[in-house]
C-alpha cells in the first residue's frame, strides 16, 4: 500500500526538483499522446524542445522569438506571483494587459505625429496606469464589498476584450488604413516604437524590464518587509494580522502591482512585436502567465526560467504543428499537462511517499 507522510519541514531538494520532474513527465505523457495521434513521439518532442533553438534551418527565426515571447510572460507572471503568494488571486491579467496596451497606445496615437523622445516613456507610464486601473476594480470591490477577486478579475477580461474590439474598429483605428480594423503600426513610428535593441536576439525594452522586475521582486521577497508581509499573509493570514498587516492594503497593493506590470507588458507588446492595436493582438499571455508563475514556484528566478521554458513550448508547438501537422489543440493539451503534472508532483515537497502496509496515526 502507498501512504503519504508529511515531512517535518518542506524539502529543499524537491522544491527545485519538482519542476524538472514535471517537465519530464509532461514529455512522457505528451509523447504518448502524440503517438496515439499517429506521430513519432521522439520527433515531436524534439521539434518542440530542441529545433527552435538549434535546428540550422529554423533557429535563425525562432531563437529571437524566445525572448520576445518570454518577456511579457515573465513580466506578468512576476506580478501575479506576488499576489498569489499573499493569497490574492488575480486571474484577470489578460484584461489588465489589454487595457495597458490600449491606454498606452491611445496616449501615443493622440500625440501623433509628435516626434520627441518623451512620447515613448509617456506611453509606458500610461500603459502601467491602464493596467493598474483595471486591476483596481476587483481590488476595491473586494476590499469594500468583499466580492471574489477571482470572478471579478476574470470577467473583466471579457469586458477588456470587447473594449479592444471596439477600439480597433473605432477610436484608435488607423485613419489612413483604408477602413481596415487596427491602429497605426506603432513599431514603424520611431517616437512610439519598442524596437529590437540588438538585432537577432529579440531583445526589446520589455525584455529588459522583465529582467529588472525579476531582480527587484527577488530583493523585495528576500530583504524587504513588504515581501515578508506578502509571504506571511499567504501562509498564515491570522499571523499576518497579528504582525500588523492590513489585509485590505495588501489586496490593493498586490492587485495594483500585478495590474501595472501586466499593463506595462501590454504596452511593450503593442508597440513592438505586435505593432498595432488590433482585435487579436493579445495572444493569451495574461492567462499563460498564471501557468508560468506556478511553474516557477512563485519565485522570481524560477519564473524567469519557467517563462523561457513556456516560450519554448509555444515556439516549438507552432513549429511542430507546422512541420508535423499536429493539431493546435494537441499543443494546448501538452501545455496543460505541464501545469497538471507540476501541481501533482508538488505534493512531494511537503510529503514523502512510503510503501508498505503499516497503518498508524501519530
Amino acid at each position, binding site marked *: 500500500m502507498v501512504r503519504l507522510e508529511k515531512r*517535518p*519541514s*518542506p524539502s529543499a531538494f524537491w522544491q527545485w526538483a519538482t519542476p524538472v520532474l514535471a517537465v519530464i513527465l509532461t514529455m512522457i505523457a505528451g509523447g504518448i499522446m502524440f503517438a496515439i495521434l499517429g506521430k513519432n513521439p521522439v520527433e515531436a518532442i524534439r521539434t518542440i524542445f530542441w529545433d527552435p533553438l538549434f535546428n540550422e534551418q529554423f533557429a535563425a527565426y525562432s531563437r529571437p522569438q524566445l525572448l520576445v515571447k518570454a518577456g511579457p510572460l515573465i513580466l506578468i507572471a512576476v506580478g501575479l506571483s506576488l499576489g498569489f503568494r499573499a493569497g490574492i488571486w488575480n486571474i484577470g491579467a489578460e484584461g489588465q494587459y489589454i487595457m495597458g496596451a490600449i491606454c498606452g497606445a491611445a496616449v501615443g496615437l493622440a500625440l501623433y505625429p509628435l516626434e520627441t523622445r518623451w512620447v515613448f516613456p509617456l506611453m509606458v507610464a500610461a500603459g502601467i496606469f491602464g493596467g493598474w486601473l483595471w486591476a483596481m476594480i476587483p481590488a476595491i470591490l473586494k476590499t469594500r464589498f468583499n466580492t471574489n477577486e477571482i470572478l471579478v478579475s476574470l470577467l473583466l477580461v471579457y469586458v477588456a476584450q470587447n473594449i479592444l474590439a471596439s477600439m480597433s474598429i473605432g477610436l484608435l483605428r488607423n485613419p489612413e488604413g483604408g477602413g481596415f480594423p487596427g491602429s497605426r503600426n506603432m513599431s514603424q513610428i520611431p517616437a512610439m516604437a519598442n524596437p529590437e535593441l540588438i538585432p537577432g536576439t529579440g531583445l526589446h525594452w520589455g525584455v529588459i524590464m522583465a529582467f529588472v522586475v525579476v531582480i527587484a521582486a527577488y530583493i523585495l521577497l528576500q*530583504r*524587504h*518587509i*513588504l515581501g*515578508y508581509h506578502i*509571504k*506571511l499573509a499567504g*501562509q*498564515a493570514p*491570522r*499571523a499576518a*494580522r*497579528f*504582525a*500588523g498587516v*492590513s489585509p485590505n492594503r495588501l489586496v490593493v497593493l498586490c492587485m495594483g502591482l500585478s495590474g501595472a506590470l501586466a499593463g506595462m507588458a501590454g504596452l511593450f507588446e503593442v508597440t513592438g512585436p505586435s505593432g498595432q492595436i488590433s482585435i487579436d493582438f493579445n495572444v493569451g499571455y495574461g492567462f499563460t502567465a498564471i501557468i508560468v508563475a506556478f511553474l516557477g514556484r512563485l519565485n522570481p528566478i524560477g519564473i524567469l526560467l519557467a517563462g523561457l521554458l513556456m516560450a519554448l513550448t509555444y515556439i516549438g508547438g507552432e513549429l511542430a504543428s507546422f512541420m508535423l501537422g499536429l493539431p493546435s489543440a494537441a499543443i494546448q493539451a501538452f501545455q496543460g499537462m505541464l501545469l497538471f503534472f507540476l501541481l501533482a508532483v508538488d505534493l512531494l515537497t511537503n510529503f514523502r511517499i512510503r510503501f508498505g502496509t*503499516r*497503518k*498508524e*496515526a*501519530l
Partner: protein
Amino acid sequence: MTGTPTTTAPRPELLAVQGVTKAYPGVVANSDVSFSIAEGEVHALLGENGAGKSTLVKMIYGLVKPDSGQMRFRGQPYQPSEPKAARASGVAMVFQHFSLFEALSVAENVALGMENPPPMRELSGRIKSVSEAYGLPLDPGRMVGDLSAGERQRVEIIRCLLQNPKLLIMDEPTSVLTPQEVDILFTTLRKLASEGTAILYISHKLEEIRALCDEATILRRGKVVATCTPRDRSAREMAELMVGATLTPPARAALPKGDTALEVTGLSVNSPIPFGMSLKDVNFRVARGEVLGIAGVAGNGQDELLLALSGELRTEPGAVKINGKPMGATGPNARRAAGLVAAPEERLGHAAAPDMTLVENALLSGVVRKSLVKNGFIDWAATGRFAAEIVKDFDVRTPGTHVAARALSGGNLQKFVVGRELSQTPSVIVINQPTWGVDAAAAASIRQAILDRAAEGAAVVVISQDLDELLEIADMFAALNTGRLTKPRPVEGLTIDEIGLMMGGAHGMEVAHVGH
C-alpha cells in the same frame, strides 16, 4: 460529595495491558507498559505532556497499533485494528478536542458518530432518556454552536453512553469546565462506575485525580514509573513522581504597585469569529508590577479580548489606554511601539507562521521594538541574533533557528512565542493560555519569566483556563463569562466556590440526580 463504593471483594479484571511498546522514528512513545483496570474502576493515567498517555489510549482505542505486547479485554485477547472494532468490543472515548459540527443539532451530531443511526425521533428520545438517567440534561434539538463547552462535552459523553460501553476513556475532560461543571461530571462518572463501567481518566490535574480515581498509573517518558492509590498520596508526591524531580513553585517578591499601565474602559466589540463571543462592557486596569489573571471557560470571550488588546480588533480610541494614551483605534504595531506585547493562544497560525523559520517568526512581532527593519529593508543579521537569543534565554529545544516553526513540539514553540514577546522589554504584557500543552518544568519557567517581567515593572494580563496557574501567579483575579468580565478582586482570600461563581457557576446546567 459521595465517594465511590469501596468493595472489599476484588472486582473482575476488564482490561489488561501487558508489556506494550510503541516507537516512532526518533522517539519511544511507550516502552513495556503494563497495567490493568477492573470493572467499575476509575483508573487515572497520569503524566506530563509527551509522557506517552495519548499513544497508550490510542492503542486501546484502535487508532495506533502497538509494536509489541498484548492486551486482554474481558479475558479475551484484544487487538483492535480500528476504532470501530474497539467500539464493537465496548470501548468508547471522549477526546479532549470535540469533534462536533456547530451548525448541526445535538441529535444530528450524535447520529453522525453512529454506525447505524436510528430514525431521528427515536434517537432524540434515547438521548433524552440517557441524558436524564445520568444527570446530564441536554435538549437534542439545540444547535451545538449555541452550547457551552460543558454542554458540548455532554454531547460527546452521551454519544459514547449510547453504545453502552464497558470502558470509557476520557482525555483531559475538565480542561474546559468550571469547578461546578467538574462536580457534575464527577457525579456522572461515579454513577457510571457504580454501574460497572470502568473509566480510564487521563489528566495532569492531581487534585481531581485524588478526588475521583481509585487507582493511578503514572507514566514518565513512555514508561510506567509508579502505580498508586491517589487518595493515599499527596498531590505533591504524585507531581514529583510524574516529573521525576522536586518542583519549586515560582518565587516572587512583594512589590509596591506602580502607576496604571493598561486601562480598559467600556470595551464592547463584536466577535470577528463565527460562533464567537462578543465582548460586553469590559472594564479593568492593571498597574505596573501587577499581574491580573483572567479565568473563564473557553469560548467566553478570551480570544476576542486578546484581539482587542493586541490591536488586531479595533475599538473606540478611549476603550484601551496604554500608559495613559488612548490606543483603542490603533493597530498592533502602534501598540507595540507604545509598549504592549501580546501572545495569542493559538501558536501555529496565529502567534507563529507554521512554515516559516524561527528567524522569520522572530521578525513577526519583534520588528517594531527590536528595530529589525531599516528603511523598509529587513536586518536579517539582527533578526537572527534576536531569534538565537530567545532560543537561548528560554531554553527552546531546537536543532537551530533555521527550522520551520511547525517542526518544534508544542511546548518548545510556546516557549519561543512567549519568549519572543517577553524579550522585548515591554511595559504591558497580554498572554492568552501561557502554558497550554507545556510540560510542568517548562510551564514553571514560563510562569517565572512572566513574574520576573512583572518584578521589573511590567503590567501583566494572563488569560488562562488553568485556575491553579492563575492562583499561583496573579495578584488580581477576574473571570470572563459570556463576554462580560467580573470585577477584578485580589487573589488573596478568594475561595474556589467564589471563583466558580465568577466563572458563571454551572452555566445553567443542573447537578446530577444520582439515585442509589
